[in-house]
């Protein structure tokens, strides 16, 4: 039923503006893949090209063993859930779900069977005779998903489907989507700019930025071994702190990094051969820091209490900003200067081009 998706050398232009540049990507059968990136990076465009709502300028898209990019949207075997849901306003929920099946002359009892089954899964069976305007945002969302499910597509496409829901409902629906994916085992592509959604839902995350794919990896790979400085800064909350590097030498366990006005930081990152300090930077996540007697002198500007832990937003003597972490019982107050130790195994080193180097494993 569901199928793998193979995207080869895809390019998309709007007039003179190149939105996607030579994108290649393989999605496995049954995989849940999230396109993650800042607004305007081309996530929706890529999704809409798979759906057939945007033309392809160069490259190919295959679904299963069939090339689909020359086909019209309806013949591709994909179903899409829109950010705005795009329910037909004058049709009841049942008619909304049945419309696509009627169009391909599915037998009536089959339509009924599928609609009832989908309604049951999504717990909207009591709403089947209502019009969309009589539904809440969350209910509309379910109907939109139901309309996709009944088509039994080879792949599901979601374009920021949770962004119109309030925070509580968003969290719940996220979990339900994960369950739905397990239950159906279908190939799903999910577009979002929200890294929490990406981390919780994805088998693999495709991080996109500036017309290209920055990294493809599991949530943990993307988080712990970001391929580029952009990914490192985009994924994770609070954002990774970046300090400018003025010199790099071989230290006792790896690269020893000099930060102007701060001093040396010993890391466990193997010194890459020919690594140039010019334009390089070192990245530190708040969770990889601890208050200590030695370490970086951090002047705290803002305290952010999260209950179980406390984030210390401050600056170093050179003026660069750093977020450090303390326990939930932290007694630090704004204006204090504290010393912060950094876990040498958890820091990331970025060269001038933004390529990342990590402590363990080769890359």
């Amino acid at each position, binding site marked *: 039923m569901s199928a793998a998706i193979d995207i080869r050398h895809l390019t998309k232009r709007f007039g003179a503006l190149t939105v996607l540049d030579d994108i290649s990507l393989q999605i496995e059968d049954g995989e849940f893949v999230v396109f993650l990136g800042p607004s305007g990076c081309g996530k929706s465009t890529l999704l809409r090209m798979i759906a057939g709502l945007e033309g392809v300028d160069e490259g190919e898209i295959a679904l299963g063993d069939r090339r689909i990019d020359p086909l019209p949207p309806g013949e591709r075997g994909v179903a*899409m859930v829109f950010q705005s849901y795009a329910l*037909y306003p004058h049709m009841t929920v049942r008619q909304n779900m049945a419309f*696509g099946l009627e*169009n391909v002359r599915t037998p009536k009892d089959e339509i009924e069977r599928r609609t009832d089954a989908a309604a049951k899964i999504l717990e909207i069976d009591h709403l089947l005779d209502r019009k969309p305007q009589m539904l809440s945002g969350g209910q509309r969302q379910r109907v939109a998903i139901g309309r996709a499910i009944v088509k039994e597509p080879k792949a599901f496409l979601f374009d920021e489907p949770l962004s119109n829901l309030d925070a509580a409902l968003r969290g719940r629906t996220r979990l339900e989507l994960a369950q739905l994916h397990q239950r159906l085992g279908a190939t799903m592509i999910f577009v979002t700019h929200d890294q929490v959604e990406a981390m919780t839902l994805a088998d693999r995350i495709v991080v996109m930025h500036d017309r290209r794919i920055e990294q493809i990896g599991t949530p943990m790979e993307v988080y712990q071994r970001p391929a580029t400085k952009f990914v490192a800064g985009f994924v994770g909350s609070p954002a990774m702190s970046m300090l400018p590097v003025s010199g790099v030498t071989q230290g006792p366990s790896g690269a020893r990094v000099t930060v102007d006005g701060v001093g040396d930081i010993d890391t466990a990152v193997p010194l890459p051969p020919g690594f140039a300090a010019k334009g390089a930077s070192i990245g530190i996540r708040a969770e990889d820091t601890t208050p200590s007697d030695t370490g970086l002198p951090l002047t705290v500007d803002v305290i952010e209490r999260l209950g179980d832990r406390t984030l210390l937003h401050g600056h170093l003597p050179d003026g660069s900003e750093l977020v450090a972490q303390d326990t939930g019982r932290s007694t630090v107050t704004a204006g204090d200067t504290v010393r912060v130790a950094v876990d040498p195994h958890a820091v990331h080193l970025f060269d001038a081009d933004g390529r990342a180097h990590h402590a363990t494993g080769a890359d």
Partner: protein
Amino acid sequence: MAAPHRQSRLSNALFAAPYLVVFIALLVVPLIWGIYLSLQKADLFGLYGFTGWTNYARVLNDALFWQSVRNTLLFVVVTVPILVGIGLFLGLALNARTGGAAFMRGVYFSSTVLSVTIVTLIWRFVFIPGDGLLSLAFQAMGWQPIGFLSTEGWSLFSVGVATVWWCIGLPMILILAALQQIPGDLYEAAALDNASRWRTFTRVTLPQIRGTLILVATIQIVMQFQLFGQAQLMTNGGPNGTSRPMVLYIYRAAFENWDVGQGAAASELLFLIILVAAMGQYWVTSRGPRT
């Protein structure tokens, strides 16, 4: 809580008051004045006393009145669906963001701004026997020319053509505006749902513009019942009154025969017919699925 709410309602009424006064002055007063006149023996110089339903009886017993009613009904029944149909067709055809479409919208709308005098002048050039456009075309084809303005049947047809040409701008613009309100993602959803062009039109487009189509039809019914200028200037109601609409009948009675009472009575009857037709049309079309 209650007091400010009531206060605001009062001030709302105050804001509406000036308009209400003008509205009553311009609409209700003539209506009542017309009813009053229709019950009087009256000419252009004065009133000569209350005559009860006499004027109505005279109108209803006048074969020319019934002829004008038949002409008007036929005219409305044919032109209104054509205006809605062509308006819808043009709306669909010109619903694009290209410069060409914008230009064509302007062209089709431009006839609307012309006065009835100019419109009839233009169409007389087309229909007039001898050196009219159609006449010349018929001669060139070697066909027998038709006296469009002076032949029974063809005269009302010619008035209808001129009217559709003149009035098409408003239906087109209203329907276009409704089409442009339809969210694009509905069409994308329909495309992913494998809907054919026809299914997309009937199940997505039509339900979305249904309210506007009803509005356009109502406006056109009310307007086309009041057909006057084109008929008077193109055919003068002829031949033998076969293109004479009700308003022309009223005009004849009141201002050529100086029988204001009879004209007023016929006017009230026209008012009633328009009211019944517009409400009947609304009732028929607004039943069924609500959007």
